């Protein structure tokens, strides 16, 4: 390890998800310690709820992942400019650090994320494939190269759990016995309008077929424009192409397809968010899991790999 790999990062103690924005020397920390079972993150205790008078940061990194753990992860991030507007498809580097107990940080690896357009327009997601080798506090330093070659730098910290809350990549797919369209009206099983046709076999029975399986847990009827709705459309398009080789299943999040009660599968799969898409091989092993939005460009090669 070179001295450059071990940096004294200006990190404050963070909670489950801490945000550090740093722009050319300006560092603003904005998070209080908190754990999943502990007290809520304490907001500013004064009458003025403002945490920072102004960030002014030319770059901010936001992390939507809710279930990062040791091992392979699909690491999603958003890059925002000084006006808090997304920066699409940028030239950038990502350096990941393990934050040590003494406040220093050790650089573990460097990578770049791929930008997937989901639409409309150039709206999309940055996705990096990461492999964390230990749990605890980690830091990410993102450098975005502007068109004039000057870098914008931002840091964010996050927590890597020893084990993921949802079934891990490499784990056996859970043999869920969800309700089917043979059990109750389809409109009580699926919030999509019209309901999709992926409610005719249980996960448990699909696993017995010896075919790869794609399982989406999401509520497309309540997120039509942003994530779940498009995800479902992409899955339905993929089903047209791969339906004979891959079993496609959708499990709705809400009981009777209406909030607020959740279906038992949400607890069974320990979902901290939705939607999720799990890819399962013919042997019943989870080979990938995708939290949130999934672009066709990302889904397509994953499905091709599933049947290779």
């Amino acid at each position, binding site marked *: 390890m070179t001295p450059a790999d071990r940096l004294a990062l200006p990190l404050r103690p963070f909670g489950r998800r801490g945000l550090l924005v740093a722009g050319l020397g300006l560092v603003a920390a*904005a998070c209080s310690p908190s754990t*999943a079972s502990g007290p809520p*993150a304490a907001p500013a205790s004064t009458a003025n709820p403002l945490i920072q008078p*102004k960030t002014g940061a030319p770059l901010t990194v*936001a992390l939507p992942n809710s279930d990062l753990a040791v091992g392979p992860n699909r690491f999603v991030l958003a890059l925002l400019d000084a006006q808090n507007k997304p920066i699409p498809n940028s030239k950038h580097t990502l350096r990941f650090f393990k934050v040590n107990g003494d406040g220093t940080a050790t650089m573990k690896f460097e990578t770049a994320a791929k930008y997937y357009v989901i639409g409309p327009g150039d709206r999309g*997601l940055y996705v990096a494939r990461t492999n964390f080798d230990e749990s605890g506090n980690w830091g990410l330093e993102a450098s975005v190269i502007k068109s004039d070659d000057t870098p914008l730098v931002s840091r964010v910290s996050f927590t890597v759990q020893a084990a993921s809350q949802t079934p891990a990549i490499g784990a056996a797919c859970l043999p869920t016995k969800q309700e089917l369209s043979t059990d109750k009206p389809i409109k009580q099983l699926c919030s999509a309008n019209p309901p999709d046709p992926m409610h005719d076999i249980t996960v448990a029975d699909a696993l017995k077929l010896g075919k790869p399986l794609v399982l989406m847990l999401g509520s497309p009827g*309540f*997120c039509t424009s942003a994530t779940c709705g498009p995800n479902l459309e992409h899955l339905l398009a993929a089903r047209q192409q791969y339906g004979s080789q891959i079993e496609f299943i959708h499990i709705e999040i809400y009981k009777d397809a209406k*909030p607020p009660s959740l279906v038992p599968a949400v607890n069974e799969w320990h979902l*901290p968010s939705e939607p999720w898409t799990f890819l399962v091989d013919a042997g019943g092993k989870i080979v990938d899991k995708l939290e949130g939005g999934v672009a066709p460009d990302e889904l397509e090669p994953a499905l091709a790999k599933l049947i290779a």
Partner: protein
Amino acid sequence: MTGQQHASRNRRLIVLAMATVLVLLLMGGAVAMLAMRQQPELKVTGVVLEVEGNSLVLPQSILVGEYGGGKLWRFKVDPAAVADPAHPMNAAHLRQHLAFADPITVYYRNGSDGPIAYRIVDGTAPGTS
């Protein structure tokens, strides 16, 4: 004064007292409503930068970067804010707003230890319609 006159007078006094209380209550209510109308609604429009907690439904808190200056706000979230049956703005949905930097507008009240979001809706970024 006879006993009957006493009883009648007492009844009149009770009715008068009740009417007075009722009028005072109505006046108080009207004043309170007027005061509420005149108080500007507290709201912030910006992007979600962090969703704290591991519940799919109710976040422990959210961090919002306000448009027009980048102020950071941390809100506790009232369960009522995520209960809209037509468009549940729950923790999972807020994470998707975070992923795409889709704007939200947070309506809040000031609690004893910070602002509490009681309604969260899709927002509009400056310069868009």
